[in-house]
Structures are given as C-alpha cells and as structure tokens.
C-alpha cells in the first residue's frame, strides 16, 4: 500500500499545539556540555550579555561562577536577584529565590545547573521544577546542563563511567528546549583541569579524577554530540511539519512498554524513552493488573517505574486482566500502538515451556500487525536459580504455619484411622485437606501442604512403612497421581480465590465510584456537594479530605496554615498536584489535587493521608476518576448558578416593568384626586361640598398610604430583610387587630368569627401575621360586592393551625388560581385600583413565619384563603 506522503492530522495538531504553548510559555535554552568544566556557564553568560545588548530585560536568577575571573567579569552589568537562604539542619544554604524572580518578571532569567537538587524545605525538590514554573509564567530561561544528568542517559553514563548519577532531569523538560552544545575536546578539558580552571568540590576530588579519564570523556562527548544531533534532526522535522513540507517520515509511530514490578523494568523505561525520542513519537507505559497479589515491595517498585515513565513523557495506562497478553494487546489496539516493547525473559533454553516464556511467544503470535521489541536488560542475564523462590511476604508466615499445622493434624487423624483403613483412603483424606486449605490460603502455603502431605503419606502409610521407598508400582503411580492432583487442585482453587479477591477489589472500586456518582447526582447545593465529596473520599481512601473552592473574585478560600495554604494556592493556579507525595512542596502535611475541567481550574481537593507510603497506582487511578467526576459536578453546579442568575435577572426585569406600570397608575390616581380636591377647596365652596372634597382627599391619601405600605412590604420581602421576630401570639388577638385595621374597608360586609376560646398560642411574628390577615381581608373587600358575608375560623390539627378567611363572593377564576400569589398578578376582571401586590405580600409574610398560604374556591361559592402555621409545643405558664 502506498503511504501518503505528508503530515498526519495528529502530527499537525501536535505541531500547532507546540507553537501555541511556545507563544504563551517562556522558551528554554539549554547550554549542554559533556561534563563540568567545558565552559557552559561562560557560554550562557556570553549569550546573556548579547541578549542584553539586544535590549532584552535579563536577570540572573542563579549563577555559580566559582570565583573564576573571566566568568565573574561576564556577570557585570546583569541584574542579579538576591538568593534566598534556606536553613536545613543548622546549615544555611542559598537557593534561587523563585518568588522574587516571578515577581520581578524579567524577559529572560539565567538559572545555572538545571539538574541541581534544592535544599530541603524549598518549594520544589528539583531546580528544573523551578525552571518549569518560570517558563509557565512566560519568562524565558537560559540554563546549563551536563549530558549525564539527563534521565534517559543516566543508565548509559553509569555503564560507561561506573558513577551513579543521582541528580537527573526528566527528558520532557528538553522537549521544547533549544539546545546549544558547548563542546571542548577531551584533551583541552584535561588541560584546563590540570591548570585548575575547573571547579571541583574538594571532598569529591578523588571520585572526580576517576571520572575525568580520557576514555570516559570521549564517550560522554559522543553522547552530548549525539543528543545535539538528534535534536537538530528533530528540529528540522518540526520545522518541516509546521510549514507542511512533505518529508520522508512515516506517519505516527506509537510505542507501548509493558511495565512490570520487576526491578529490570526501570531500564526498559529508559530504553523505550530513547527509542521514542529517536522515532520522535509518543509512548505509553502500560501495566496489566493480574489476579496475583503484589507484595508491598513490588507495588512500590511498580509505582516507581510508572512515575519514572510519566516523568519521561509517557502516557500511563492501566488495565486489569487475567491474561497479561490480552491486557497488553487490548491497550495496544485501543491506542493505535505500532510497536510493543517487552523485556527479554531469562528463562529460555530448557525451560521454554514455563508460562513466563510462553506468554512472550503468544504475544508475538497474537500481536499480528504490531511490531514487538524484545529487549535484553542489563543484569538479567545473570544465571538465576532454577526455581525462583520468593521470600514469603510478612503476612504470609502464619499461613504457612497453618498449612503445616493442618497437615500435621490430618496425619494424626490418619494414624488413628490406620488400623481400619487402607493407605489409599489415607491419600484421599490428605487430598481433601489440601483442597480445603486451598480455599482459605494463598498459593505458597497450599503447595507446601501438598508436598508435605505427599511425603508424609508416602513415609507413614505407603508400604513399606516409615521409608520413602515405594514398593508396588501401583502405589508409586498412586503417589505420582496424588502429587499432581494435589498441586493442581491447590493451584486452581487458590487461583480462583485470588481472582475472586481481585474481582472483589474491582467491585469495591466500581462501587466507590458509583457511590460518589450517586451521591453527587443527588447533591443540589454546594453544601451537599461538599458533604458527598468528603464522605466518599474519606471512605475510599482512608484520608481526611477537604474541598477548597474559590470565592466570587476567583481567590481560593481556606483556613489553613500559610505553608499548607500556599501549596493549595499553587495547585489551584497551576492545576497540578502539590504537597505530600508530589514533586511540589512535598514537606507539607497534606496532598493538594487540582479539580479541573478543560482549561479551568475549579478548586482544590486537600487529602491528608493516614498512610505513610505514597498512594499506590490503584489508588491514584481511582483518585483520578474521583477528581474528574468531582470537577465535572462542580462545573455543572457553577453553570447552574450562572443560569439561575440569568433567570433571576430576566425575572427581575420583567417585574420592574410590571412595577412601573402598576405603580405609575396607582400613584397618579390618588395624587390627582388630592390635587384637584385641594385646589377646589381654596376656591371657597359651601360647607357640604367642602366636606365631600375633604372626604375625597382622605380617601386618596389612604389609598396612597396603602400603596406605599405594600411597596415597602414587598421590597422587604424581595430583599430578604423580613426577619420574623417570633413570639407567642394569641390568635384571637391577631384576628382582632387585623379586623380593627381593615374594619373601615369591610364596610357592609358582615364578619363572622368562629374561634374556640381555647385556641392554642402560635409562635409567629405578630406584626407580619397581622399584616397578612389585613391584606386577606382587604382582598375580600376589594373583590366581593358590598354586603357579602366574610367568615374567619381556625382549624387546629396535630402539628398545624390553619386560619381561614372565606367569603361568599364570586370566587376565583380557574386560570387565576395557580397564579394568584404572584407579584403584580391581577385576576382578569378585577375591580380598578390595586396593584396585585396584596396576596404576594401575604405569601411572603406567611412563609417568613414558616407557614404557607393556599387559595381555594368553596364548593358552595366564594373564595377561601387558608394560612397554615406550624404549631409548637405549648409553653407552660
């Protein structure tokens, strides 16, 4: 098939992304040397001086000249940020003051020795992390680095020089960096060394001299040159891609490395990284979780390997499957992987039938279109014991004892039974015991029981007795069969048990996520969300959790000591984990995890682990799931709030419109009446006309007074300023007070009151309830013809009391019923005058008192309003 020449969409996207991040982030320029003394710092300062001459704002973040004059001279004219003293165990060290540099925010900062390890107690353990933060802030950085400090090369360096490199930087930091090779021939370097021009700390002098052998230097130089050359190749490719120049490259390679807890996996990680680098492709570190329980040590090793892979730029994938081959291939196919990397097992030759060799051939066979690299690992060649014996984990010893104990007990039983039963029946009893053990114990102890019981059977019961010698062929066969069956049964059953345990674990994990989803689904307020999050996190991780969210101004809220809080803020601002068990501020008590959706940092989850070891891969995976889900819910809630606000705004707009309409009419009418009447009064009319006019003025002013009172009441309800002053109220009193105030308006409407004298006291705000009743009575007066009887009575139920105001008027229109308590709503055909506020005030006041109000049509005609209030236990007098 013809491969299309050109750029795949993936690559183009990656190239564009690269361009974009470049524009926002600062750029990193690395002055790379083969080792100390080649003049990296010098070259960096020279470049800095040039940049300054070009008008850039250059600042020294941290430069170590070791007092050399030529180098010192080059720092002149460059502003240096004062270093920050860090006291650790009584020794004062100085480090780059990251915050000061960030605050100063120059265009370009010089930071020497990228691989440096910061003093304990600094924000980041490693200087390259400081540099990342500077870059994130949009500051360009010049830095220096020796090739041996690059993570993926450190193995090779160790192989060449024998020196273990502790200070390494992940290859990812070089990803987008510009490399400038500072080259010096080994002869020149050795000469400079002899002249004392290379700074060497005194205590390591001997080791260093061992290091500076010509052979080493040649190898290191080659590595540095090769790295630079590879980089040039990649730069060219990037350039061509960015400008869509068709090139000779193949489309998207993708590597997958199968990571295991084996100690050799680490080298494989580095190897794969180098391969990915030279293929310039992405890579995945995959782990397949099998039913086999990992010991704590293995678990830690696996975690370390996967984090190393992450640091080296790998994507991490984990899956669980009984069969490693299936798991790997599933991930590989799902991720469009083109090449798989696995370690070369050490069990070829006479043992090729063992599962560890078999799975490899199966992988090769079943991988069909995918290439498989089988990589030899340094150290794995050493001859290993025929039977690899794993020391039992701490917790397993009692199981071995138990196994031996049960076999012993069964033997005693068999000895008792020996006079009655033949040797073959004994064998079956042993077998039954082994099978029973397999249900409860791990594989190791079951094997022990199988072997032990076989030997005991042979020794004690198979003739000739008390020897291991077996006389009859039949017995020998029985013995062999026994052995095979016991081991096989033990193996199968304990594997079943292990699978069950894994299933249970998986189920627990699924259940945990499900519970979180369920509880978060039910949560509709921030408080409920927080409670659901904290409950679930604490239950699933045995860690104390806290949810930290920003306030309206976008600042993170939290009540924590400064150090803890600054870690939380860092996490929030960078949307990256910080705190305990991470690379950033690891000295804090708790871990801080970002809650983010695409592009948005929504808050921080604080986790105070009870365990002292870092979270396992399993926990991290689950935590990732939790974080994603929590972030989604927080986002959803935020959006909901925004929507609500928009809705409230639209509603209030509609209301203010209605208000203006209603009020302008209602205000103008009585004002006009007063104005007209009072001007007529001045013109001196006879007494009866005068009286009539005065009556008009009074009526108009009363109407105005009521309108203003209504508007004020409404405003109080709207603004939430109705703070009921709850007190014991006598219902008789309430109704009397209301009747007295509404009395003049009820003219001609007979009011009948039917309240038993023993009505209970109600806990309510007297004035608010009085006003609500007045408004109900006025409503009745306004909407019924004169002479209509009005009834007031109460109904006392178990925990509530209802005050009912009913009339025999025309009743309520069907379409008005559901809307009657809305603001400014006026029933169709309502008499002129009135704003449609009265009943909404009733509703507001009654609800402020913890009650509710309803409107009905009476079966025999007329409207009925029911105010229901909760009844408290009656006070004793």
């Amino acid at each position, binding site marked *: 098939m013809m491969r299309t020449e050109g750029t795949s969409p993936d690559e183009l996207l990656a190239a564009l992304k690269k361009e974009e991040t470049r524009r926002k982030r600062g750029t990193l320029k690395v002055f790379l040397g083969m080792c100390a003394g080649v003049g990296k710092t010098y070259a960096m300062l020279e470049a800095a001086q040039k940049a300054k001459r070009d008008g850039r704002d250059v600042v020294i973040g941290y430069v170590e000249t070791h007092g050399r004059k030529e180098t010192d001279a080059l720092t002149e004219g460059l502003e240096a940020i004062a270093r920050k003293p860090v006291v650790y165990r009584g020794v004062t060290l100085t480090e780059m003051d990251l915050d000061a540099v960030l605050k100063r925010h120059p265009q370009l900062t010089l930071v020497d020795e990228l691989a440096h390890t910061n003093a304990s107690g600094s924000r980041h353990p490693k200087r390259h992390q400081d540099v990342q933060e500077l870059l994130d802030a949009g500051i360009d950085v010049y830095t220096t680095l020796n090739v041996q400090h690059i993570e993926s090369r450190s193995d090779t360096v160790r192989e060449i020089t024998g020196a273990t490199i502790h200070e390494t930087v992940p290859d990812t930091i070089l990803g987008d960096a510009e490399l400038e090779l500072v080259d010096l021939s080994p002869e020149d370097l050795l000469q400079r060394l002899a002249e004392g021009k290379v700074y060497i700390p005194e205590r390591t002098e001997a080791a260093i001299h061992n290091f500076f052998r010509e052979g080493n230097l040649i190898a290191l130089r080659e590595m540095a040159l090769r790295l630079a050359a590879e980089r040039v190749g990649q730069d060219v490719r990037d350039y061509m891609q960015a400008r869509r120049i068709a090139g000779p490259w193949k489309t998207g390679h993708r590597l997958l490395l199968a990571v295991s807890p084996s100690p050799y996996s680490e080298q494989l990680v580095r190897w794969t990284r180098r391969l990915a680098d030279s293929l310039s492709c992405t890579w995945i570190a995959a782990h397949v979780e099998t039913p086999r329980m990992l010991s704590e040590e293995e678990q830690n090793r696996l975690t370390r390997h996967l984090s190393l892979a992450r640091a080296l730029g790998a994507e991490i994938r984990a899956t669980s499957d009984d069969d490693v081959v299936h798991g790997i291939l599933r991930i590989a196919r799902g991720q469009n992987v083109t090449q798989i990397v696995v370690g070369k097992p050490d069990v070829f030759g006479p043992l090729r039938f063992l599962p560890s060799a078999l799975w490899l051939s199966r992988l090769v066979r079943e991988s069909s279109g995918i290439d498989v690299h089988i990589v030899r690992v340094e150290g794995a060649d050493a001859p290993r014991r025929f039977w690899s014996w794993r020391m039992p984990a701490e917790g397993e010893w009692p199981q071995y004892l138990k196994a031996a104990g049960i076999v012993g007990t069964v033997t005693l039983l068999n000895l008792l039974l020996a006079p009655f039963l033949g040797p073959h029946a004994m064998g079956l009893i042993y077998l039954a015991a082994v099978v029973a053990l397999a249900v409860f114990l791990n594989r190791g102890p079951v094997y022990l029981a199988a072997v032990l019981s076989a030997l005991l059977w042979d020794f004690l019961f198979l003739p000739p007795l008390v020897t291991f010698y077996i006389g009859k062929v039949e017995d020998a066969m029985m013995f062999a069969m026994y052995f095979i069956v016991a081991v096989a049964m033990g193996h199968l059953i304990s594997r079943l048990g292990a699978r069950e345990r894994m299933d249970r674990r998986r189920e627990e994990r699924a259940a945990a996520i499900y519970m979180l989803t369920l509880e978060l689904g039910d949560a509709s307020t921030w408080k409920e969300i927080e409670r659901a999050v904290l409950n679930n996190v604490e239950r699933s991780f045995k860690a104390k959790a806290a949810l930290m969210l920003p306030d309206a101004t976008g600042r993170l809220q939290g009540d924590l000591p400064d150090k803890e809080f600054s870690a939380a803020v860092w996490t929030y601002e960078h949307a990256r984990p910080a705190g305990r068990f991470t690379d950033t501020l690891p000295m804090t008590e708790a871990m801080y995890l970002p809650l983010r959706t695409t592009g948005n940092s929504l808050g921080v989850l604080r986790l105070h682990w009870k365990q002292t070891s870092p979270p396992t891969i399993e926990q991290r995976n689950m935590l990732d799931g939790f974080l994603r889900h929590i972030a989604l819910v927080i986002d959803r809630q935020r959006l909901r709030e925004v929507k609500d606000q928009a809705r409230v705004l639209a509603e209030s707009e509609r209301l203010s419109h209605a208000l203006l309409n209603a009020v302008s009419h209602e205000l103008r009418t009585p004002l006009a009446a007063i104005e007209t009447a009072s001007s007529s009064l001045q013109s001196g009319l006879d007494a009866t006309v005068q009286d009539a006019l005065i009556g008009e003025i009074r009526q108009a002013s009363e109407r105005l*007074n009521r309108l203003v009172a209504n508007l004020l009441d409404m405003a109080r309800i709207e603004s939430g300023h109705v703070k009921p002053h709850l007190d014991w109220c*006598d219902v008789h009193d309430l109704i009397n007070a209301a009747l007295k105030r509404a009395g003049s308006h009820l003219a001609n409407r007979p009011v009948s009151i039917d309240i038993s004298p023993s009505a209970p006291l109600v806990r309510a705000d*007297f004035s608010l309830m009085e006003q609500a009743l007045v408004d109900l009575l006025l409503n009745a007066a306004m909407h019924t013809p004169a002479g209509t009887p009005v009834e007031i009575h109460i109904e006392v139920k178990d925990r509530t009391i209802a005050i009912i105001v009913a009339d025999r008027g025309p009743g309520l229109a069907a379409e008005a019923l559901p809307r009657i308590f809305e603001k400014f709503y006026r029933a169709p055909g309502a008499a002129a005058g009135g704003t449609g506020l009265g009943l909404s005030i009733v509703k507001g006041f009654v609800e402020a008192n913890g009650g509710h109000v309803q409107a009905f049509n009476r079966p025999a005609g007329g409207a009925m309003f029911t105010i229901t209030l909760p009844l408290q236990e009656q006070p004793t*007098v």
Partner: protein
Amino acid sequence: MNPETDQSRLALIIDDEAQIRRLLRITLEANGYKVIEAGNGQDGLVEAATRRPDVIILDLGLPDLDGLTILKRLREWSRTPVLVLSVRESDEDKIAALDNGADDYVTKPFSTPELLARLRVALRHAQPAEEQTAFRNGGLEIDFAGRLVTLKGKPIRLTATEYSLLRLLARNAGKVLTHRYILKEVWGPKATQETHYLRVYVARLREKIESTPTQPVMLITEAGIGYRFSASE
C-alpha cells in the same frame, strides 16, 4: 377639645421635615398649645433645656442624632413627657424608645384626634398625681386599697397575678406599656422574655372583665409592642 388647664401648654416639636412641623404647629395651635420647633436633634436638646416645654414630640428618624440618643440625653435631667413619631415598620425602634423613657408613640401617618388624645394622656401622667385609691372605667371599678375589683357592681375573683397585671395597666390607663415593662413589673426582671405569660393572662383577664372577650375594648393589644388600657374618656 379644650386644653385641660387654664394656661396653654408649651409643646416642642423635634422633626427634620418642615412640612410635618408646619402641620403639627397648625393643628396644635388650633387646639390651644403653644409650639416651638427644632429641625434637628441638637437644636431640639437645646430648646428642651432652655424653654422647658410641657411635652415633646420627637421624630425617631433624625439626620444628626438618632431618636434613642436624644431620649437618653433628655432623660438624664428631664421628666418631660415625650411622644414619639415613627413609621410602621420600625417596631423595634418603638419598643426601644418606650423602654428608654418615651411615654407613648404615634405611627405616621396619624390622625389629629388620635395625636391630641395621646398628648393629653401623656400630660396627665406627667402630673405628680397623688396616689389614686380607686379606678373607674365604664362598669369596671378597682379599689386599690381593698384589692377589690367589681364589674357592674359584681365582685370579680382575680388571682394575685391577674390583679397585679390589671392594676398595672389601669394605673397607666391610656398609655402603651411594652411587653418587657409589664413582664418586669408583674413577674420580675427574670421573666422579661416570657411573652406567653402575657398572652395567657391577658386572655384570662379579658374573659373576666370584657363584655365580648374576643373583641376587647379595654385591654387593647398594640401589635408587636405591648398592651394599653384604653380608658373611655
């Protein structure tokens, strides 16, 4: 409506609204009072000290000093009756004013007859009245010396608490008494929050002395404030 004494009374109006002051002046002068005005609290205190008015009408919402402060300062040296003007929403202000020495309150907007009646009650209570021995109102008679209460000539049996409540209200007839004040006077200083005592005892008293207990004419509830014994004049 005549002034009750031969010489006309001097009333001080402290209110920042010129229109209200004007209106009050017209009304009061028409009813035989002499009137002085103050537009803010400071001036009001000065006028009160220099002119020694017989009664003060004080608006609670003044721009410079709040009504309570003025009341407290005034009460440091003067027993002059004070009638407070307030709006409907400010129950708490009214209670605070009454508890701090105001004699009564009138809610804006108010009617002239009501204002004049309140002024008369305030002035009457300011009289250094000799200890009354008996109280008469409608059919109700209270003989303070004999602790005897009769309604239309028939003796009424009251418990000790009911009697002291009735006596307190009757002695202050026409004047509003706050819940707090009544509770303190009748049940003691520890009971000032136990308003349900009042609800229960007032209801019992109404049963005994009012002709229609559900529509009382003597023991009047002042919504959210307290009670008033409304004397028929």
